[in-house]
């Protein structure tokens, strides 16, 4: 008998050997489908209402911000807020220098850089980026999309496109950072799938990371 005509060495035999990965992948895809279905229900019912206004009070969600006039009609808007145990004058420098090629976004830059964003969070205040001006470009990634600075109220507001970082002093040593973000226009099925399927979730992780990063930097620079 030729070696190639021998029965398989494995007692399981070729049929079972091929059946194993088939069962494994079928179970894997079923598990993935189940997870996605459960996540969809949980996301719509619980997670989305929570994260679209993460940390913000009812009043802050309804409050008009200086950047509101730059928000296009018909977009999805989130309002998130966090209390920082530092005066606004110590928070503002970290907001002023946000951007790729500047002080980074103070978010999870190790995630951003998986997409060649070339973003590096500064761990100190960078004097050269402390005076953003209307019309300056703020990049989201290297050689990637950018938006113009729409409004600057030094020490209080930075608005890029319609994205607003708004500082509210809460006494001498505390500041409320409110961040209002408008989605890109969702005018087609493709744009809706991209926004609701990937972008909104990715943005929530990165924006929460950014707000935590700003809080950490401002509070540690005592």
């Amino acid at each position, binding site marked *: 008998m*030729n*070696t*190639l*005509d*021998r029965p*398989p*060495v*494995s007692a*399981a035999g*070729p049929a079972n*050997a*091929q059946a194993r*990965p*088939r069962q*494994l*992948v079928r179970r*894997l*895809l079923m598990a*993935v489908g189940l*997870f*996605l279905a459960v*996540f969809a229900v*949980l*996301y719509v019912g619980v*997670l989305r209402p*929570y*994260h679209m206004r*993460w940390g913000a009070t009812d009043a802050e969600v309804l409050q008009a911000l200086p950047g509101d006039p730059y928000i296009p009609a018909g977009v999805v808007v989130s309002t998130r807020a966090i209390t920082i145990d530092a005066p606004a004058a110590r928070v503002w420098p970290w907001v002023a220098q946000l951007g790729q090629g500047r002080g980074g976004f103070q978010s*999870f830059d*190790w*995630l951003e*850089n*998986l*997409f*060649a964003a*070339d973003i590096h969070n500064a761990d100190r205040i960078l004097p050269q980026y402390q005076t953003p001006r209307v019309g300056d470009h703020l990049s989201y990634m290297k050689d990637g999309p950018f938006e113009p600075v729409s409004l600057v109220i030094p020490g209080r507001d930075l608005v890029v496109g319609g994205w607003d970082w708004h500082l509210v002093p809460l006494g001498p040593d505390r500041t409320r950072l409110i961040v209002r973000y408008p989605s890109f226009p969702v005018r087609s099925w493709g744009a809706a799938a991209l926004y609701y*399927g*990937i972008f909104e*979730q*990715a943005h*929530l*992780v990165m924006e*929460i*990371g950014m707000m*935590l*990063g700003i*809080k*950490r930097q401002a509070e540690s620079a005592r």
Partner: protein
Amino acid sequence: MTRRDLQPLDWGKVAWTGAQIGIAATFAYASLFGLYAIARSAGTILDVLGPFAAWGTLTTVALTLAYLVTAFALLLALGPALAGAASALLIAGASRRWNGDRSPDKAIGIGFLVAGLLVVPFLALVRLGLGERFALAHWETVVFWFGLPSFVFVTACLLTSLTWVRRTL
């Protein structure tokens, strides 16, 4: 040995098995990365908010990261499935032609050869397509999207080749 000595092989099944190994490897890689991303982001959240204020944020970010990783893996699984099918066919063909004596050394050689035949042109095309972005300046990007997946692919080819010789010929 002549070609007529060989048992008939269901090439469709071989390709399908390879495709499934590619899909399974994609999800395994994505799962490992997802766990890493959840653990690392949780460290930041706990560090800034403290354990008592962080649970809602931790849960939201962890579930969302798990979803994003799963969604990306699902969207990207077609490529590894095709690569898995192609490499399984090549390994099966090469093993039947050159490794009738079931030599593990030859199996390793075939695994490396098939992996190289697919990985080297793929990386060359990616290098051409991405240009400057495929550089050490973006080492995280290159390692995450191409370096580690290539390592997983080469390992899978080696294991498939060895397993093929042991079980299926």
